[in-house]
């Protein structure tokens, strides 16, 4: 047998495919961050530069803790992928604008260190880090997390005195604390009030106030297919249906636009890592979030239910994935017909 002829070229070999789509993880993270910027700019306009300061502290601590943890664990430092920036930004969005400066720092550190890096970093965390950070702060400093609402200077909620220090949802939950319950409820469902809620001229967390800007950013992400429509539609759809069916004093539009629902449905529940990968699973996940949010808002102790509903569903994600395997092409059911 002859010897195999050798070749001079330095050819590089790898498995197919040999071309790749341009949408890399880091690009997607950046696009999500950009989609959140209009809401951030608007919040800065409403509550002042303080908002920017809190956001920057939150992001700096998130990125810093990520680098520190990766260094301590002897891993490659991957802060350039933009995921820590996004976590910091989302955590800031979930804080009242009047919180002391150290609160976002502690929240970000908890989110990155305990909820993300200790579970293996990006892709391995089972709950949304930003929401875990928020839950940690809620449990540790409940008064700071629920009382530091600032008056929006860019506009006021017309006609209701005293609402400037409460969010519309806390007004709805305990109207008696703020005056005549009947009048407050009526005014909350007023067209003018709902318009203010939609445009964001209300008290609330930094990122949740403007339904309009969140909608713009969220729809942009759905258009780019970075955010899956199934989770958003499942979440908002089941939420609207239940609010409409169940006894609550707020109108459907009021519930839809008030509080963190849109922020949660578009930007938090749709987190890639912590939501199911199957198509059916994403519907179930979204619907589950909607159901739990309504239960908390109507019967629970908190005026808001978005963050806990998402965290709860995060925990169910592996189970949902296991129970909702995709139907393989050509798979037949036991009866021999297509499923």
């Amino acid at each position, binding site marked *: 047998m002859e010897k195999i002829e050798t070749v001079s070229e330095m050819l590089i070999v790898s498995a*197919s495919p040999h071309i790749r789509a341009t949408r890399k993880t880091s690009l997607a993270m950046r696009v999500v961050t950009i989609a959140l910027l209009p809401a951030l700019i608007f919040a800065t306009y409403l509550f002042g530069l303080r908002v920017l300061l809190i956001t920057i502290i939150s992001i700096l601590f998130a990125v810093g803790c990520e680098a520190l943890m990766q260094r301590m664990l002897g891993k490659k430092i991957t802060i350039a992928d933009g995921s820590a920036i996004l976590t910091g930004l989302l955590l800031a969005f979930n804080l009242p604008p009047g919180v002391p400066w150290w609160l976002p720092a502690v929240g970000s550190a908890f989110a990155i260190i305990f909820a993300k890096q200790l579970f293996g970093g990006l892709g391995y965390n089972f709950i949304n880090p930003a929401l875990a950070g928020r839950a940690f702060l809620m449990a540790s400093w409940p008064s700071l997390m629920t009382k530091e609402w600032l008056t929006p200077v860019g506009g006021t909620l017309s006609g209701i005195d005293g609402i400037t220090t409460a969010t519309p949802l806390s007004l709805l939950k305990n109207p008696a604390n703020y005056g005549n319950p009947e009048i407050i409820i009526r005014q909350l469902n007023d067209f003018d009030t709902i318009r203010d809620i939609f445009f964001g001229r209300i008290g609330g967390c930094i990122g949740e106030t403007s339904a309009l800007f969140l909608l713009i950013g969220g729809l942009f992400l759905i258009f780019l297919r970075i955010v899956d429509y199934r989770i958003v539609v499942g979440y908002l759809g089941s939420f609207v249906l239940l609010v409409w069916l169940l006894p609550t004093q707020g109108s459907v539009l009021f519930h839809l636009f008030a509080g963190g629902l849109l922020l949660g449905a578009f930007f938090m529940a749709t987190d890639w890592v912590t939501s199911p990968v199957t198509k059916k699973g994403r519907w179930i996940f979204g619907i589950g979030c909607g159901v739990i949010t309504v239960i908390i808002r109507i019967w629970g102790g908190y005026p808001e239910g978005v963050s806990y509903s998402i965290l709860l569903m995060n925990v169910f994600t592996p189970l949902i994935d296991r129970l909702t395997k*995709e139907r393989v092409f050509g798979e037949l059911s036991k009866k021999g017909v297509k499923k």
Partner: protein
Amino acid sequence: MLTRFAGGVHPPEDKNTEDRAIEVMPAPKKVYIPFSQHTGKPAKPLVQKDDEVKIGTRIGELDGFISASVHASISGKVLGIVEHPHPIVGTSLACVIESNNSEDWIGDLQTDQDTDKLTRTQILDAVKEAGIVGLGGAAFPTHVKLSPPKEKKIDTLIINGCECEPVLTADHRLMLEYTAQIIEGAQLFQRVLDARTLIFAIEDNKRDAGELFRKTGVEVVQLKTKYPQGAEKQLIKAILKREVPRGGLPMDVGCVVHNVGTCYAALLAVKFRKPLIDRVLTVAGDGVKRQKNILVRVGTPVSDVIEYCGGYVGSPKRLIFGGPMMGIAQYAANVPVIKGTSGILVWQQAKMVEEGPCVRCASCVDACPMGLMPTEICSHVRNKNFDMAKSYGVLDCIECGCCAYVCPACIPLVHYFKYGKSEVWRKSKQ
């Protein structure tokens, strides 16, 4: 009419050579003809060192049911039967023939047989004799595909002119330049299979080809340009809404799919007794001077093909046989063109990507045309949990590459699936 299948992707088409007519590349000085160019058992060598061969001399005889004969593509002297780099399996036995610079064909080449008079068996034998295999890429012996078991009644024959791989334009050119021959070849197949319906499937980025076929009165289905539209199962689903069962073949749903190039080659085989000794392929990429569609002899070393196309631009880092989605990266520049080679891509850049962690974005699940969960299978393969990989359907994977194409973390999913499949097969053999 636009029909569809679930999943799939739409990479940039980059079909830069679609306007370039097929050129005939002159016979090379030396050819390396592997005995295994098809799915199934390698052919048995029939020649030995110093034998004189002519163009079309049978040098390898089919061995067993799923196998195909191999023929000399130039006339000259056999230098030996050697281990030589092979575009798919690393190295394999190949017959080296040195040209005597003549174009001597074997004697029994007939001219223009009246194909209408041929019986079913005669057509089948001619196809089998000529060593025809599927030219779409998988190189499955055509005579086997044309002889389904009696209980499998075939009602529809689909001729695949999708060419859904980006860059490649060889089938497109063939459809434009040899329309009548492809149709005639397809009609022979239809007669052999006794299929009621004959459908030509063409993507809507090749409307000109679709028009040409439609004008002759045959049934053309225009399909959405989407990868992998040309994959058998997806094609059948898109056209007939039938789903080939898991682990099954198209004949299980009364269907057979053949590539347009195969029809052309088969017609020449039946009409002129011409064995499969050459094929049309696309040469493209930024690493080659002139991008072309050319007719190349089987066994031609790729270096000769590049030389014919004006040589390399710079120093090539990548040499791919096939398209960018499913093609196979080559390690040697002297690998020969084989029957299933649909294209040669030469790139100056290696386009290396760094693999990141899976972020569970589910893009792969949405893109998979087989309804699999690539990320799940991948993690089972990585953990060497092959039973789980199997239960999640690793064997159903058609290696189309959609999942790896869309993966934002650049995980080489197909690589893991190929490994996973080989391990599952190895375990089941034990």
